[in-house]
C-alpha cells in the first residue's frame, strides 16, 4: 500500500514536473539565444564601446550566481512597477543570465571564423546577404551548435532554482513529496533521474553533432 502510493506520487511528480522544466527551458532558450546573437555580434565587432558593453554583460553574469540574480529580478522589477508574475520573472532571469553565456559562445564562434572564407566569398562576387546566409552563418552555427546545446543543459539545471520565486517545478514538487512521504532517497532519486534523462539526452545529441562537424572539418 505504501509502495503503491509512492509509485503514484512518483508518476505524478514526473508527469507534472517534467513539462514545466521543458517549457521553461524552451521559452527561455529562444530569448537567450537572441540576446546571445546580439551580444556576440557586439563582442566581435570592431567598435570598442560595443565590445566593452558585451564584455561587461558577460562578466557580471559570470560573477553573480543565478539564484542571486533571480531574486534581484523578482524584487527589482516591482520596484520599477513592472508586475509580470513569477513564471515570466523566471523566464526573464533565465534568458538574461544564459544570454551572457551564449554571448561568449557566439562571439567565440564568430571570431573563430577564418577570415579567408569571407574574403573568398567576396572575391567570387557574393553579396553581403549571400555571404551571411551561405558562408558565414552556416559555418559559425556548425561550430557553435554543440556548445549551445551544452548551454541548454545548464539551463535545464538552472530551472530547478526558480522554485525560490514560488514556481512549483520538478525539484520543488519533489521536496513536497519528500515532506509528505519521508522517503528522501527514493523521491530525489526519481527527481534526479528525470533531470538526468533530459540532460543526458541533450549531451548525447550534442556529442553526435560534434562528431558530425568534426567529420567535415578535420582531416581523417
Amino acid at each position: 500500500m505504501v509502495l503503491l502510493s509512492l509509485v503514484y506520487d512518483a508518476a505524478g511528480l514526473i508527469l507534472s514536473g517534467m513539462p514545466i522544466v521543458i517549457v521553461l527551458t524552451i521559452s527561455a532558450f529562444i530569448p537567450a539565444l537572441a540576446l546571445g546573437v546580439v551580444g556576440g555580434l557586439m563582442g566581435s565587432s570592431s567598435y570598442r564601446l560595443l565590445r566593452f558593453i558585451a564584455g561587461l554583460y558577460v562578466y557580471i553574469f559570470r560573477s553573480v550566481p543565478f539564484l542571486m540574480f533571480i531574486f534581484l529580478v523578482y524584487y527589482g522589477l516591482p520596484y520599477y512597477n513592472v508586475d509580470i508574475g513569477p513564471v515570466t520573472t523566471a523566464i526573464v532571469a533565465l534568458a538574461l543570465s544564459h544570454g551572457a553565456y551564449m554571448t561568449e559562445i557566439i562571439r567565440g564562434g564568430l571570431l573563430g571564423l577564418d577570415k579567408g572564407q569571407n574574403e573568398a566569398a567576396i572575391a567570387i562576387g557574393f553579396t553581403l546577404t549571400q555571404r551571411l546566409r551561405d558562408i558565414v552563418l552556416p559555418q559559425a552555427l556548425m561550430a557553435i551548435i554543440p556548445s549551445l546545446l551544452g548551454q541548454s543543459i545548464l539551463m535545464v539545471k538552472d530551472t530547478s532554482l526558480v522554485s525560490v520565486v514560488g514556481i512549483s517545478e520538478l525539484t520543488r514538487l519533489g521536496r513536497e513529496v519528500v515532506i509528505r512521504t519521508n522517503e528522501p532517497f527514493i523521491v530525489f532519486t526519481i527527481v534526479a533521474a528525470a533531470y538526468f534523462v533530459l540532460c543526458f539526452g541533450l549531451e548525447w545529441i550534442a556529442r553526435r553533432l560534434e562528431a558530425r562537424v568534426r567529420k567535415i572539418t578535420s582531416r581523417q
Partner: protein
Amino acid sequence: MTFFEARDVNFHFGSFHALRDVSFEFGKGDVLVVCGPSGSGKSTLIRSINRLAGPLTSGSMSIEGRDLANMRARELYRRIGMVFQRFNLFQHLSVLENIALPQRRVLGKSRREAAERARGLLDRVGLADKADSYPARLSGGQQQRVAICRALAMEPELLLFDEPTSALDPEMVGEVLQVMRGLAAGGMTMIVVTHEMGFARELGTEILFMEAGQVVERAPPAAFFANPREARTRAFLDQILHH
C-alpha cells in the same frame, strides 16, 4: 592592345605606405608574374585590384579602359577571379558545392548546369573522384586545384593568383603549376604573385619585380633573368636562385 592598366597607384594601410606610384599594363592573354621579397607589396597589389585590400589612396586601375574603382561589385568580381594562398575553400561545403554554389548564386545558373560544369572542371584537373569530399579531407595541392576550378567556373576575364603554391608542401607544387600551365596555354589572362622562378621564366609574358611598395624592374623573363638592370633585382635573384 592594353587590357589592364594601373596608373600611379598609391595605397596606405593606416600610415604605412604599401604601394608607391605603381604603374604597369598588359594585354589580353598575358601572364604577368609579380615577384619580390616578402613585405614588398606584391600581395597588396593583387588584393587592391579586386578591392579586397580596400580603396586606393590615389591613382587608378582599369580593365579595357573601365575604372575598377567605380565598377559595381557584381561586375568586378565576375570579371576578375582570385586564387588564394591558403585556398579558402568553403569548409562546410563539398568540393562540388564549392564550385557549383557560386555559379548558382552569382551567375544565376541552374543547379544542374552548375554541377555539370563543376564536374567538367574537376575532371580537367584530375579530381573528378573528389567531388563529394569535404575540403578538409584533401591535400593542399588538391584543395588548390579545386580553388582554381571554383574561380574558373565563374568564367573570369582575369585571374589573380596570390602566392598559389606558397602554402603547399614541396611535392604538391608541381600539380598546381601543371594546372596553371594549362591555363596559360589556353590563353587565360593572369596575374601571378609567386616565388616560383621556374614558372616565371617558362610562362611569364612579363615579370614585375617589387620592393618596398615600388616597381623596381619590369621586363620579359628572358631579359629579367639574363641581365637584370637594377642592383636590387640582381641581389634578389642571387638570393632566390642560389640558395
